[in-house]
């Protein structure tokens, strides 16, 4: 593709170093450093307002950081080379609602400098990738929510970038369409694309991302593979979830004795061995608590986030 020939593919596809962005007194991004390799999907996992989108917008040159840098194959983020190597799917439906799918793709293709045969081929490829071939002449605003999202993604793919940034691409999408979007992203990763995927859905990060950076209040508070993150927070422990009938104060007092925490009548504990469950339940019975349900599970990213921040991921 045009422009990409000028960048050095031996360099890291995407590298963010010590990025800081302030809006007045608010530090939206605080010393964030990231790298993404070819064929890798890095998840930026964090609640709404954590600073994920600001990191993405800094990479695409839409936000000027106060300090730090973002480079794409060694080229600064606001250079033409970087723009041609980068694709961005914003959280909003950033498409033209009154023109058709293929016209939308044509418009964005031309904005990237495509024309003639290359433009036509790119439109065809994107329509196929987004499974919109049979809707290519339909105006964007009449598409279903999932189709609009797929068109939104396809518009960012017209110049076949090497690095792709997906900013919460499944917002407001039904489960079936979401699955289709996952397949599209997995196909790109399998082709060797470097991807950043932001989400506040733990399940999405777990399914799609090779590595995950957990971001909160503008800082990356942990990063690694899912297993690494869980291991760092919980070691080899498992989690016990126990739901009781009874007074909330009594449940909390019992949970506190065993270093657990209570959320919506459900007490949560970390245990090294499954045998510890019997001891916990025995103590609960002595405290007069009536057990409704108990389960044992491996800690997940939600648990890691809760462990690191003391808050739910979706708070």
């Amino acid at each position, binding site marked *: 593709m045009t422009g990409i020939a000028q960048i050095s593919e031996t360099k890291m596809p995407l590298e963010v170093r010590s990025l800081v962005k302030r*809006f007045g007194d608010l530090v939206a991004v605080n010393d964030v450093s990231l790298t993404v390799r070819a064929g890798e999907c890095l998840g930026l996992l964090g609640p709404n307002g954590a600073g994920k989108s600001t990191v993405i*917008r800094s990479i*695409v*040159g*839409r*936000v*000027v950081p106060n300090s730090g840098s973002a480079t794409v194959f060694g080229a600064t983020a606001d250079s*033409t080379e970087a*723009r*041609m190597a*980068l694709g*961005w799917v*914003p*959280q*909003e*439906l*950033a*498409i*033209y*609602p009154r023109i058709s799918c293929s016209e939308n793709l044509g418009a*964005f293709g031309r*904005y*990237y*400098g495509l024309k003639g045969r290359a433009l036509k081929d790119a439109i065809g490829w994107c329509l196929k990738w987004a499974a919109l071939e049979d809707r290519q002449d339909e105006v964007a605003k009449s598409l279903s929510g999932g189709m609009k999202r797929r068109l939104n993604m396809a*518009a*960012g793919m017209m110049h076949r970038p090497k690095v792709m940034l997906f900013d919460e691409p499944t917002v407001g999408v039904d489960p079936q369409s979401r699955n289709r979007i996952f397949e599209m992203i997995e196909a790109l990763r399998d082709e060797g694309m470097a991807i950043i995927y932001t989400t506040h859905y733990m399940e999405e990060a777990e399914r799609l991302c090779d590595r995950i950076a957990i971001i909160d209040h503008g800082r990356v508070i942990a990063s690694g593979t899912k297993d690494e993150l869980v291991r760092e927070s919980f070691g080899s422990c498992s989690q016990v979830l126990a739901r009781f009938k009874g007074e909330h104060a009594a449940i909390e007092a019992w949970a506190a004795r065993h270093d657990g925490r209570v959320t919506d009548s459900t007490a949560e504990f970390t245990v090294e061995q499954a045998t510890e469950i019997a001891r916990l339940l025995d103590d609960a019975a002595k405290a007069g608590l009536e057990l409704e349900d108990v389960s044992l599970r491996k800690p997940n990213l939600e648990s890691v986030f809760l462990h690191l921040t003391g808050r739910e991921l979706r708070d």
Partner: protein
Amino acid sequence: MILHVAKTALTALRRDRGALVLSFVLPLAFFSIFAVIFGGQHDSTPKVNLIVVDEDRSEASQDLVKALKSEKSLVVKTKPAAEKKNAPAPADYTAETAEVAVKAGDAPVALIIPQGFGQHPIAFGPEGGGSELQLLNDQSDSIAPQIVVGLLQKAAMTAMPASMADEGMKYADKYVGFTPEQRKKVDADLQALRDEEARGRTSSASGASEAGDSNAGIVAVKTRAVVGQDKKSPMISFYAAAIGVMFLLFTASGSAGALLDEAESGTLERVLSTRVTMTKLLAGKLVFNTLLAFVQLVAMFLWGWAVFHLDFFSHLPGFVVMGLCTAFAVAAFGMLLASACHTRAQLGALSTLLILIMSSVGGSMFPRFLMPEAMQNAGLLTINAWAIDGFTKVFWRDLPVSALWPQVAVLLAIGVVLFVVARRVARRWEVA
């Protein structure tokens, strides 16, 4: 319950600044504009530019010119304005150059006082036998010649009493007959009147300027249209331009508002992350809005041709030049408004306010020559006035494209300045 509904509506109105502006500021602005135009405030009634050519150079003709010059409602010009400050004074108008000047729109009326006027200046009735004054007029201004004719009659009465009495006595002598004594007495009285007229000419002329009667028939006037005399539908081209520009302004603002939609949806930010820069983006939209406005003008004039017999195709070159320049200025105006506003509602309110004011002051709602001089000058700050003047030159005065340079230069300059300011204001969208 009714009060709750009313209270909710009031709360919504208070939050909607655009609606508030339209509800209160716009009516006040319009009231003021109309009051100034038609209320005759501060003695600012419109003055009529009148070119006077005195071919007679007699005492009577000079008295008449002097009396016309003292009229507050007239601006009498006997020679063109000097092109440069230190340039030698240009020659007086002749009948030919006066006609050219009226055709060019320098003045709506020219008065030719023919040779021999002084011998028989007064004409009692249609067959009075007095010398005939010639009035050359531009039909686009139907009011100016009427004002001039009225003031001419008044000036004749006040500036030439001796001539009028002399002519009256001749009638009396012809139809009644004087004795030699009576004739001697009449001659003595007329001489005394002439002496009196010579002594107090100026005071009698200026002192009567407030009278409203035209006293038609004292001097014979023949009016001849030199512009628009062969037009099938005299005012169609004026209204096509006047109304066209006003609606072009509305369309351009609405169309430029797409920028706000794109900013709100995130499309603008996405486009700016591609190879498209803000300057290129705005320039692209300016090109589109210019072409859209031009096509609108074409449609309007074609409609005028098809339905109202507007002579469109023989004025095509001038139309294309004026149409493109007007469309460019109007499109840049829309771009600036869209760049300056934060929401569609703001844009709607601001554009309605500005466009209606510009259209009323700039001559889209009523001809500028009806307005007080200050208002006419204020109109020159609007796109409407320059566009209408240019189209009038093309369709009304049949002037060549080269004569459009002032309008073309001003409209292009307006467009460039507005676009540069719009680009500067649009920096807020570039990066955070």
